[in-house]
């Protein structure tokens, strides 16, 4: 844990973020809509924010009383916003059996904790409930301050609410797709939603675009340029944005990819487009991305490249590749 606190501070075991790439079989076999949902939703969207906490000097019997009164099974031990440990019903049972229920929480709390970060996808939380069999996980923000607590009941409630909204969205999307089906093979329009930090699915849109172009018999050279632009922009949405849409259309011999996100926006576009500049964190770099080459590479493979951005609003990147028609392509 960064900013290591005093000796008695809890030792949070942070989930390995790369673990988000692998899901337990039971998650992978969920319907796509549910998969998308648990990637899009963040832990902060689901957690209980109004956390009941105790200080280290409070006796264990007070923790027991609070658990009974509030119908909860675990209470974080916090001072000055920092998490020091957690008292669970197991700790209370041991205290009663051991005759030390009047002792301070700080002496008997669990200090080796597994915690989640508030901006992690919900899928992480589900995986960690599966892996650790704990009743709850404290949630920390980037400054390592306790900002919430999450239990499986929170997840069930949030998923039910979100699924209802998701079905409404899907109905609208379905109507749009039907319209797209009417399009001819030389005119295509597809939208791919991309969620922040959804590395499990990042790249699937670019893959679908590449496959569609190969099926339409465009030359490998042209396919590669479009696929690289799509992939870089998709990864950018996943890594740098709060989520967005990758739109692709081919029309009149041109492939146009538009990546539009919902923030946070780029302060200095010229800097962002320079070779080797990136705001990616170590975790992103450990996954092989964030070298600051993405936009440069998109520009390289594009015949037209355009980027607009506003801090707090979002960024739109447009990449056009002149692809001709499949028959023209084969002749070249």
């Amino acid at each position: 844990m960064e900013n290591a606190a005093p000796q008695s501070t809890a030792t949070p075991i942070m989930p390995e973020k790369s673990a988000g790439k692998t899901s337990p079989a039971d998650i992978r076999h969920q319907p796509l809509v549910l998969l998308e949902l648990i990637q899009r939703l963040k832990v902060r969207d689901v957690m209980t924010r109004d956390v009941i906490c105790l200080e280290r000097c409070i006796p264990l019997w007070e923790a027991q009383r609070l658990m009974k009164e509030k119908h909860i099974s675990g209470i974080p031990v916090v001072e000055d916003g920092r998490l020091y440990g957690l008292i669970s019903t197991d700790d209370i049972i041991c205290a009663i059996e051991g005759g030390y229920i009047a002792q301070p929480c700080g002496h008997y709390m669990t200090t080796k904790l597994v915690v989640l970060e508030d901006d992690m996808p919900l899928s992480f939380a589900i995986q960690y409930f599966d892996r650790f069999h704990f009743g709850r996980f404290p949630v920390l923000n980037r400054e390592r301050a306790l900002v919430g607590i999450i239990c499986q009941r929170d997840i069930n409630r949030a998923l039910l609410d979100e699924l209802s909204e998701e079905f409404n969205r899907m109905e609208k999307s379905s109507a749009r797709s039907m319209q797209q089906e009417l399009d001819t093979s030389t005119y295509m329009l597809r939208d791919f939603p991309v969620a922040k930090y959804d590395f499990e699915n990042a790249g699937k849109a670019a893959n679908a675009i590449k496959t569609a172009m190969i099926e339409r018999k465009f030359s490998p050279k042209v396919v590669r340029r479009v696929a690289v632009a799509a992939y870089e922009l998709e990864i950018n949405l996943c890594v740098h944005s709060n989520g967005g849409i990758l739109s692709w259309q081919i029309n009149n011999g041109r492939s146009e990819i538009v990546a539009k996100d919902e923030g946070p926006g780029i302060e200095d576009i010229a800097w962002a487009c320079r070779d080797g500049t990136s705001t990616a964190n170590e975790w992103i770099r450990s996954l092989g991305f964030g070298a600051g080459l993405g936009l440069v590479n998109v520009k390289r493979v594009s015949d037209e490249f355009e980027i607009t951005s506003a801090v707090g609003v979002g960024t739109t990147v447009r990449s056009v590749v002149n692809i001709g028609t499949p028959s023209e392509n084969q002749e070249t």
Partner: protein
Amino acid sequence: MNVQDAVSVLNAELMVRGDGFLKDIKHVVASDLMSDVLLVDEDDMLLLTSLASDQVLRTAQIVGAVAVIVVNGKSLPSSMKQVATDLGMTLAVSQQSKFDACIAIHHAMSK
């Protein structure tokens, strides 16, 4: 040298036999930085990397690589085999370091 030969030269354990298993390798790229791999404009490429993730396979697929060999004996996430199968990408794991793997492949291709 084709992909099968490269797997053999590196004493690699074949995890997925993909569509290009018998294809000749024209270029070899060794990198853990997928951003670099995406800059490569070569066909029939073999990717050597010590990064074990689904994104390695997706990157390889986008640039038209014929195979991915994960070096340093890295253990693969359980999803990686499935992604390789879905993409038709040959996937193997070698215990050799990236440096040694590059030398071995170079020697074999120079013969």
